[in-house]
């Protein structure tokens, strides 16, 4: 007993100590051990899995490939910590009507093979990726551009192989015309899909996916499948985020547990995530090298509005269910502090995030929850189920949420487990979800429309629950045609404020990065998408 008690105190002391450093930390982790000598040519290693797809910018949707792509390619723009735009390869992007954008490139940029980065490098790459014949998984990202429907028609043969909305003016200038105005289009341009490609790519795109040539801060060295990918600093890089280290080794790990063991025995330097098994100890193990920071992703319970149960539901019932979930306790106990209770639908770190957007709908209040459900006519059948994939570590919290709902309101709640993510997606796509389902969303670009328009618009790709509301659709259209970015942001904020009246989903919590790094490196920071910022890492001598 005595041992257990003292262990508890050690843990508490560690948490308190960390809390203090975390408050002081934020962006300034670089200052903490600046005394150590830095080796500007030192290489360090990062834990990743084997990229699922070839390393082509528009073909990489999962995190293992995209972290590599991001190191090899540089796009027109990037974002800073608060979600503001930073120009990278673009010198300026101007628009008078939010429909036609004029992009001017910085001069002197080169691909890793020495060829210059021109306006054509972008236009040709986008046209290539948008063409369904080239089978790029992210091709629908180009659908905002005028002429996309001719290149990739929903039915029938394509009428063109180039989008009419893209025009090269001169070597360093091109224009993008959209099919309709989008004030925040520049935000989308930060995604890897919009990266340029060198001329050599088109000769053999398949080989280029195995040996990518980009224009980013690192150049490709080698890819030993299922072992490691090596990239080295590109000396001629002209962007604002030049590498402060000599290169990166992306080491392949099949499980987070083994990666953590290797971190402890200094075989890997930077982790992206800590396994649930190690969460209770990682702060004690790593001390101030443990990372615990919010990033822009949200977990929700989405509603299958196409079912009989929820077809004509009074939103009050969903409000009631939401208020019956004790988010504070669940995030602290079951989820071990790896999540932060959500207070709205837009995640933190995104431009337009507003604290407490959902009002009291996300606060735990069993009495009011019961009342609201009763006022809304009760839950049809007085029973709900939450569908989730068993391979994603969701079981524990789904059960906790169910318990919380049943305890507070008496509504019967069960978890509906699907064997894996594939089976889960299958049921969602086929509209076979019986009642409610788990739905997570990681940002594509840090602007609030990404969390509203792309999830709750009637025709949005991310809207799998069949939520459809004419008023919301109209307001989304209005926000999209706003005259400026600021105005659009404000209009989306207003929409978010109204969402409690419709309850398209029940927000649960925001994600946090729980990661760590070895004592060989310093200056490790994490971006909005939860990935470490590789260029900023410094290797000690």
């Amino acid at each position, binding site marked *: 007993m005595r041992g257990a008690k003292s262990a508890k105190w050690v843990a508490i002391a560690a948490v308190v100590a960390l809390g203090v450093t975390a408050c002081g930390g934020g962006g300034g982790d670089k200052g903490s051990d600046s005394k150590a000598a830095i080796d500007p040519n030192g290489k360090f290693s990062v834990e990743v899995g084997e990229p*699922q797809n070839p390393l082509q910018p528009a073909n990489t949707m999962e995190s293992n490939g995209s972290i590599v792509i991001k190191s090899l390619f540089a796009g027109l723009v990037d974002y800073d910590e608060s979600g503001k735009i930073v120009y990278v390869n673009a010198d300026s992007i101007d628009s008078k009507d939010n429909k036609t954008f004029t992009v001017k490139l910085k001069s002197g940029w080169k691909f890793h093979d020495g060829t210059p980065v021109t306006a054509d490098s972008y236009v040709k790459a986008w046209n290539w990726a948008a063409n369904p014949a080239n089978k790029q998984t992210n*091709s629908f990202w180009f659908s905002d551009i005028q002429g996309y429907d001719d290149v990739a028609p929903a039915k029938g043969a394509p009428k063109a192989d180039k989008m009419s909305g893209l025009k090269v003016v001169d070597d360093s200038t091109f224009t993008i015309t959209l099919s309709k105005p989008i004030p925040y289009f520049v935000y989308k341009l930060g995604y890897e899909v919009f990266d340029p490609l060198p001329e050599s790519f088109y000769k053999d795109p398949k080989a280029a996916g195995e040996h990518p040539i980009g224009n980013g801060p690192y150049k490709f060295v080698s890819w030993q499948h299922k072992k490691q990918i090596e990239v080295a600093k590109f000396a001629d890089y002209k962007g604002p985020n030049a590498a402060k280290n000599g290169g990166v080794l992306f080491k392949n*790990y*099949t499980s987070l547990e083994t990666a953590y*063991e290797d971190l402890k025995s200094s*075989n890997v330097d930077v982790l992206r995530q800590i396994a649930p098994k190690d969460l209770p100890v990682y702060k004690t193990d790593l001390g101030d090298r443990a990372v615990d920071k919010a990033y822009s992703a949200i977990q929700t319970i989405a509603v299958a509005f196409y079912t009989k149960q929820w077809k004509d539901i009074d939103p009050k019932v969903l409000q009631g269910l939401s208020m019956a979930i004790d988010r504070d306790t669940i995030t602290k106990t079951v989820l071990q502090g790896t999540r932060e209770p959500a207070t709205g639908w837009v995640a933190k770190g995104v431009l337009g995030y507003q604290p407490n957007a959902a009002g009291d709908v996300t606060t735990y209040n069993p009495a009011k929850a019961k009342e609201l459900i009763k006022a809304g006519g009760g839950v049809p059948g007085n029973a709900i189920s939450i569908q989730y994939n068993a391979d994603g570590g969701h079981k524990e919290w789904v059960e906790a949420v169910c318990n919380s709902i049943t305890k507070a309101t008496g509504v019967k709640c069960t978890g509906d487990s699907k064997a894996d993510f594939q089976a889960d997606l299958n049921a969602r796509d086929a509209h076979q979800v019986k009642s409610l389902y788990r739905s997570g969303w990681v940002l594509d670009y840090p602007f609030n429309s990404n969390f509203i328009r792309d999830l709750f618009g009637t025709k949005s790709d991310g809207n799998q629950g069949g939520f459809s509301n004419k008023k919301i659709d109209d307001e989304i259209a209005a926000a999209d045609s706003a005259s400026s970015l600021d105005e659009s942001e404000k209009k989306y904020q207003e929409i978010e404020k109204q969402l409690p009246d419709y309850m398209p989903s029940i927000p649960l919590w925001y994600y946090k990065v729980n990661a760590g790094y070895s004592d060989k490196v310093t200056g490790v920071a994490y971006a909005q998408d939860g990935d470490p910022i590789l260029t900023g890492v410094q290797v000690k001598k």
Partner: protein
Amino acid sequence: MGRYVARRLLQMIPVFIGTTLLIFLMVYALPGDPVRGLFGDKGGSPQVIAQLRHQYGLDQPILVQYWHYMKNMILHGDFGTQIASGRPVTDVLGDAFPVTLRLGALAFVIEFVLGIALGITAGLRAGRVTDNAILLVTLLLISVPVFVLGYILKVVFAFNLNWLPPNVNDSTNINELLMPAIVLATASLAYVTRLTRTSIAENLRADYIRTAIAKGLPKRRVVGVHLMRNSLIPVITYLGTDIGALMGGAVVTEGLFNIQGVGGTIAQSIVRREGTTLVGLVTILVIVYLLANLLVDLLYAVLDPRIRYA
């Protein structure tokens, strides 16, 4: 002998077709679609999904898919293309098999040498302290689950003593492979020990051993030739089937030590519904298994002169 081998090889054909077809059908029966799976939560452009499904022939009936797959495999040695990465499955197999072969071979050597040595020691001293001690140790090794044993070894040899690296980053490094090979070998090692021990203890009382001793042969020759040759038949049978298990059944050990071998690739292919990769892997495993069994049956004749194959 030649006719026997030919007959056995011919028997492999129906087994081969049966297993591949079964696995093809089983992957097909699982809910989920490998192409749709590429797009995750976000959904993708229907045009690209349709194009991809067409490219991989997923829009055709299952038996037609199977026919095309087998045709390409047998005629061109082409195992298809992995859907997510677009790499030929032969490349994926080429990555995974050498790793598993190295691990499996090391484990096999450990269980063979150590298992038989312990078994002979125990068998020759049947009923005495050494025998009982070995019995106890093997019992322990059989009953401890692989992941527990793996974790204990890691804590002791990697974290506390710092003798060995905890995980495998480079599968050609024998230092890194040693610990997983030991873990992989333990359970089989215990069985080999027990089989050898029983067999040795029993044959020790056989008439021909008494004759050999009575002839005045030196003990080394009695044990090394007369006793071992007869006693090893059940052991060889077990070792033969174990080769197959070492190849495909190392999922747990591989996951535990970050080894990117066949076991992990099989598990991943199932999760991603990569039917072609899975069938390719299993096909090779089936062939390995069948050949190992044939080899064992032929070895019987070498070990026991009473066995003849017509």
